[in-house]
């Protein structure tokens, strides 16, 4: 029994680790969307973060630089999106899609020389406790600092949006940019900031993949996680806490169905692989079915181009 419990603990630890990139990317995108910006470039920003984090680690041999660098590169690529959509008033959807295509291509190009190089070990906190405490040990200890940050982030984001003045301004801009502008709020500045923050978080999410989760560079290694993150934000109806729940369900079922596949269950593999997507959507739709709350959380101006009257 003791062994089984410990195994479940390890399983939960693995689920947590697999949901980190989703939480980070979705939390970043959530802030951007709450300000009314629909950035479909999440996948692109993540993969750029993944390659630049990995490359910087190899080049500088410094994990701190690698992590900071990945965030900066995510930020810079999101700046392109900002310039296009906020200053040149291009369509959010098309620009975001272009950003993803650009990011995937760019990362493949940079990453050519980094294929096959083994990554470096990332320091894990209190790794010794992981072994010594059964069940709870593998859940709470032996993770990277980024994981702890990721699990705190939705709560911070929730507090930030609900309780701080800046959060209020972001929600106001997402609700009605015209009204915000008439109130003297610099809508463009607010939206730029939210886009850049979202970019940095996506960069970090990518770095988590290439530095910690599977420490190496593989082309296209984000494998659609950016799209999942985007979907999470929408199905979680823009609530940071529900994003966390959704990411855990998705991560959880992904890991579980792998174990089920390994156990040789007589269920078609395709069905098992589809399970995480289906279950996440079902659960999020069920827990978010309060139409009153949806109306209050949905950024009314999402995806709308804003320009000031002259």
């Amino acid at each position, binding site marked *: 029994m003791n062994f089984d419990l410990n195994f479940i603990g390890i399983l939960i630890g693995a689920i947590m680790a697999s949901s980190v990139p989703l939480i980070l990317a979705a939390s970043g995108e959530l802030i951007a969307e709450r300000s009314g910006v629909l950035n479909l470039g999440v996948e692109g920003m993540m993969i750029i973060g993944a390659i630049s984090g990995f490359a910087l680690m190899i080049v500088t041999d410094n994990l701190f630089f690698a992590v900071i660098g990945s965030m900066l590169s995510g930020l810079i690529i999101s700046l392109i999106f900002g310039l296009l959509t906020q200053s040149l008033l291009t369509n959010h959807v098309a620009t975001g899609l272009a950003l993803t295509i650009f990011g995937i291509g760019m990362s493949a190009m940079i990453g050519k020389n980094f294929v096959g190089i083994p990554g470096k070990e990332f320091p894990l906190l209190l790794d010794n406790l992981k072994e010594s405490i059964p069940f709870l040990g593998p859940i709470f200890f032996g993770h990277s600092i980024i994981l702890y940050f990721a699990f705190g982030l939705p709560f911070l984001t929730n507090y930030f949006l609900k309780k701080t*003045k800046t959060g*209020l301004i972001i929600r*106001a801009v997402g609700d009605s940019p015209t*009204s915000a502008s008439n*109130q*003297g709020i610099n809508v463009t500045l607010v939206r730029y900031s939210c886009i850049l923050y979202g970019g940095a978080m996506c960069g970090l999410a990518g770095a988590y993949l290439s530095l910690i989760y599977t420490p190496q560079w593989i082309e296209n290694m984000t494998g659609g996680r950016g799209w999942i993150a985007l979907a999470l934000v929408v199905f979680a109806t823009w609530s940071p806490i529900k994003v966390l729940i959704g990411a855990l369900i998705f991560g959880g079922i992904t890991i579980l169905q792998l174990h089920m596949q390994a156990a040789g269950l007589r269920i078609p593999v395709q069905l098992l692989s589809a399970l995480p997507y289906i279950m996440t959507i079902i659960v999020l739709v069920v827990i978010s079915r309060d139409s*009153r709350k949806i109306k*209050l959380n949905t950024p009314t101006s999402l995806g709308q181009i804003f320009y000031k009257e*002259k």
Partner: protein
Amino acid sequence: MNTKLKVSEISKIYPGCIANDKVSLEFGSGKIYALLGENGAGKSTLVKILSGVVKPDEGEVFLNNESIKLNSPLDAKKNNIGMVFQHFNLFETLSVFENLSIDSDKKDEDLRDLVNGILEKYNFKIDLDIPVLNLSAGQKQKVEIIRCLIRNPKVLIMDEPTSVLTEQETDDLFISLKQFSKDGILIIYITHKLKEVLSLCDEVAVMRKGKVVSVSNTIDEKIESLANKMVGENLNTIKKKINNFKNSEEILKISNLNFKSDDPYETNLNNLNLSLKKGECLGIAGISGNGQNELFQILSGEIITEGSSIMFRNKEIGKLNPRERREYLMAFSPEDRISQAAVPELKIYENVALNNFKSSNFFEKGLVNEKKIKEHSKKILSNFSVNTDNVELKSQFLSGGNLQKLIIGRELITSPELLVCFNPTWGLDVGAINYIHETLIQINEQGKSSILISTDNDELLKLSDRICVIYKGKLSKIMNADTVTAEKLGILMGGGTID
């Protein structure tokens, strides 16, 4: 505290239109000023300049004899100029208090005390912690006003504030405005409603085509004199003869209709019953948000109901969609001209084509018969005096009045037996309102019926043969229009009863 505001030689030119042409005006505190003009006369541009939203091409603004720069809304706030826009500048999904705190530097507790003080002083009743989208239009306006008041304004500008208010709310607003004026706030009141100028304001400046054409004391003015100055020509007033339809043929009958919505922000309709005779106009009054939207959608087929609950010319139509209902000769003019009645990005003739039904032959073998549609559209434009003959023009470039004429024309050119319209003159100027009213009277004279859902009581009393009131999704008793007064309507609209 004496405030003097002066605008001097203000000009603003937009491509193809001079919005303000050397406008000069002077205002002083202690009085309420009316800025009167038709839509497009340049009033809104002028107040946008005063509130820093739009920059003038030329001219200066003086506050207490000092020239002030109004480059942004922040500048207007710094100079204590408060502005309540016609279209509310509120954040619908935020709470009332969040809306107020967003542009205040005060601590939350201090701000709350201040706001509560204002609520008490002016006898406003608003829950500060519910989202704005749960408020009525009148309450939303009060939030806007409070937002100005917490900054101790010297000048308060109200842009067409009563266009969304009920009669009772309007009365309340006027009481508040008079109180503000007594407290030393200079009030500039923008409107195209003549009655309001006379009952509220001390001085009136009339604008026409970007220019100030007259400044006078309101005591020296009458409705007719102001109307003529505003329009620049003599208007004739219209009056309808109320008929008795007791023995006429019944054209529409709604019996025991219920509608329950899943959306908490929609109104449920309870046990609706009404009948409409041939050639009759039935007016439905009510404060907006009491089920008018839902009633309109039920009539138009946007909401489907039990087939037998709506009988039109002895046919069950409850299950039919809007296009099918049009085939049965019903016609509809929705409230929202831009988003419901017409597609602003489409050309005039394309919008006309949207209304097609089988008999119109606009489409043949899946192809658009452009020539036919254009001819048809031209006919509408000329028959209904739309101020253009260019059917290629995008609908968004039509003024509200012209767009409404196009929409009503599009509906009427097929000679429907019943026209259902919802606030057909909302936000229109006197000339266009007159035209629409004449048209609506005409169709009754031709023996066609109409249902007029409106929040404008004057309009209802002018056009209806019978009137009822919708309140919280329920219809009142249907009364003959000649027995109805504005007061009676007011009581019923507020949920009261009369015998």
